[in-house]
């Protein structure tokens, strides 16, 4: 069975396997980092950066690392869906060759499970590498004071403690299982029979349940502010609820954006993009969800910068911490760009015959690419705008009367975030040009 799954994986192509493996490796590494922070005693015996060394901020740092798993998980979902049509045809051929429905399901699980397991094991190696590069320095002498030792160096990974063997086992099995479950969910609604593949009727349009979570986050804001000094749990919970709200709102946002644009545009590119969003809002929404969440955090970060400027607080701890957060957000945006690119490729692969037909009837490749860009923009830009405004305004309000300079910083942060998202979409579609060229090829007009 495993040998057959490996053969099927080869048929699916190494790039897809590498992408699946890279996503699970990143998730596994981040989770091992979170576990190692959790294993760190209150006062560590090593030099670490304050965010990790200080027991008060450590929980927030671990939470941020946990949040960073969301973009690779969303990318994993997109990667699993990549080439689904070809995969379903392979599985149908197996049914015709005599495989039972159960065997086909197991093969489907192995097909994702094998690269996911390989990626998880690679994640252990990546964690070990980060430990060497960013590991804390042991101290030979005790320090005066009550608690932690601070260092301006970026020592973020504890070396005095390590995840226990069963921690590692749980993380590896958990990450692999996530891959398998995502694989199973990607084939939901697909009925594989020996005579081919059929899909159940498309479900109802998505509902805006995510709005409830966002409203809940806004309602929780005063509570979080009140208890923020005593426990980091309140702001962590608030951010978690807000991020979940943004992510669950994304498919609805995709559907509404499509509906809005289709009745107002005379541009063929926008019309194509809008109708694709209406027809399949969930994949596009999931691809853009991470962008909305990143914009939300970026908005909050911008508000914090504005508050620091307003209060003339230039403590290096805050400056370096915010720079670290900005770097993490850029990394997350890079992964989200990958997610958008993979969705773009998936969209082209699924529609290659229709794309080839459009090209044959005289639609230029530029228009087809523009449709790909608009498909991402119509969802990601409103999501990013709402996210960055929500983050910056709610947290900015905490700063009281912000000086004009601080307000300018707030505005610049919003503009920069939206500019980066716009750029990310353009890059994501640009890198998929070879697939667009292939999809538009006359060879796809042939019947199978």
């Amino acid at each position, binding site marked *: 069975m495993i040998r057959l799954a490996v053969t099927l994986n080869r048929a699916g192509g190494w790039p897809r396997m590498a992408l699946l493996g890279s996503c699970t490796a990143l998730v596994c590494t981040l989770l091992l980092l979170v576990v190692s922070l959790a294993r760190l005693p209150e006062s560590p015996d090593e030099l670490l950066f304050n965010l990790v060394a200080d027991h008060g901020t450590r929980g927030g740092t671990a939470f941020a690392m946990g949040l960073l798993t969301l973009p690779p998980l969303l990318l994993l979902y997109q990667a699993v869906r990549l080439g689904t049509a070809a995969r379903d045809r392979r599985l149908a051929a197996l049914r015709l060759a005599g495989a039972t429905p159960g065997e086909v399901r197991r093969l489907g699980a192995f097909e994702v499970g094998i690269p996911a397991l390989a990626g998880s094991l690679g994640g252990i190696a990546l964690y070990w590498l980060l430990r060497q590069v960013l590991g804390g320095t042991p101290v030979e002498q005790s320090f005066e004071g009550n608690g932690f030792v601070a260092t301006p160096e970026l020592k973020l990974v504890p070396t005095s403690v390590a995840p226990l063997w069963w921690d590692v086992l749980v993380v590896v099995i958990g990450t692999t299982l996530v891959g398998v479950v995502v694989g199973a969910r990607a084939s939901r609604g697909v009925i594989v029979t020996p005579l081919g593949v059929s899909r159940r009727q498309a479900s109802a349009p998505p509902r805006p349940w995510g709005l409830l979570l966002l409203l809940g986050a806004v309602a929780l804001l005063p509570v979080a502010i009140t208890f923020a000094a005593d426990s980091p749990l309140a702001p962590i919970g608030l951010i978690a609820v807000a991020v979940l709200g943004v992510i669950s709102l994304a498919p609805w946002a995709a559907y509404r954006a499509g509906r809005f644009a289709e009745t107002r*545009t*005379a*541009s*063929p590119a926008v*019309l*194509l993009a809008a*109708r*694709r969003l*209406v*027809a*399949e809002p969930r994949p596009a929404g999931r691809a853009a969800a991470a962008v909305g969440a990143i914009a939300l955090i970026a908005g909050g970060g911008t508000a914090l910068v504005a508050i620091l400027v307003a209060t003339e607080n230039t403590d290096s701890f805050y400056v370096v911490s915010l720079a670290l957060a900005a770097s993490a957000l850029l990394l997350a945006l890079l992964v989200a760009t990958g997610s958008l690119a993979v969705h773009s490729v998936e969209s082209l692969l699924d*529609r290659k*015959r*229709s794309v*080839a*037909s*459009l*090209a*044959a*009837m*005289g*639609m*230029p490749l530029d*228009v087809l690419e523009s449709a790909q860009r608009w498909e991402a923009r119509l969802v990601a830009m409103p999501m990013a705008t709402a996210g960055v405004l929500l983050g910056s305004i709610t947290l900015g309000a905490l700063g009281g009367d912000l000086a004009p300079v601080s307000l300018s910083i707030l505005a610049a942060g919003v503009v920069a975030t939206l500019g980066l998202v716009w750029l990310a979409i353009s890059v994501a579609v640009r890198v998929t040009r070879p697939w667009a060229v292939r999809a538009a090829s*006359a*060879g796809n*007009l*042939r*019947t199978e």
Partner: protein
Amino acid sequence: MSSVVVEARAVRKAFGRTEALRGTSLAVDEGEVVAITGPSGSGKSTLLLCLAGVLRPEAGEIWYAGRKLDDLSESDRTRLRRREFGLVLQFGQLVPELSGAQNVALPLLLEKHDRGAANTLAHSWLERLDALEVADALPGEMSGGEAQRVAIARALVTGPRVIFADEPTGALDTVSGERVLGALMTTARESGATVVLVTHDNRVAASADREVVIRDGAVCPAPVIR
């Protein structure tokens, strides 16, 4: 006196090691309806796509209205296909996410027509082809015959000079096939368009002015003239 509108001269085209066209030549006169027939894999569709400027031959020449298509850039060929040619394929190949009317309006929007005007024209063509009832339906909700009539409306909406149809009735039952063929021929003859169609169906071929038989990538020497 008739004039040649589209012509293939000694065209060669291969896909990997399979030679689809082996020095094929064919000239089609203005306003003529030509049926290309032949066994599966004989190169009929390849010849049609070469004539339509979709495929570039490796050797030989394709001429349209005194212009050599091979010398045109990809952008110019794309513009030419959009403005001068109409293309109908076996399964319609409509955009699955667009409604019938939106599919028909698409070539007009590409030509920067006003949205309202494009929509009106699309509806009038759908009515002409007896497909108005599927104007708001998605292709997945249409029957094969309805989808093909929408595809024909899309091919004709820009007023093309030449219509290329690849097995337009190949996936339809007899009744739907006759209806689609009737719609294609009537509208083409009314507008004076030239039609080049590929078919396996003798009845479809019989409705053409001339039948050209292709075998092993070459035109058989004795064309059937009706």
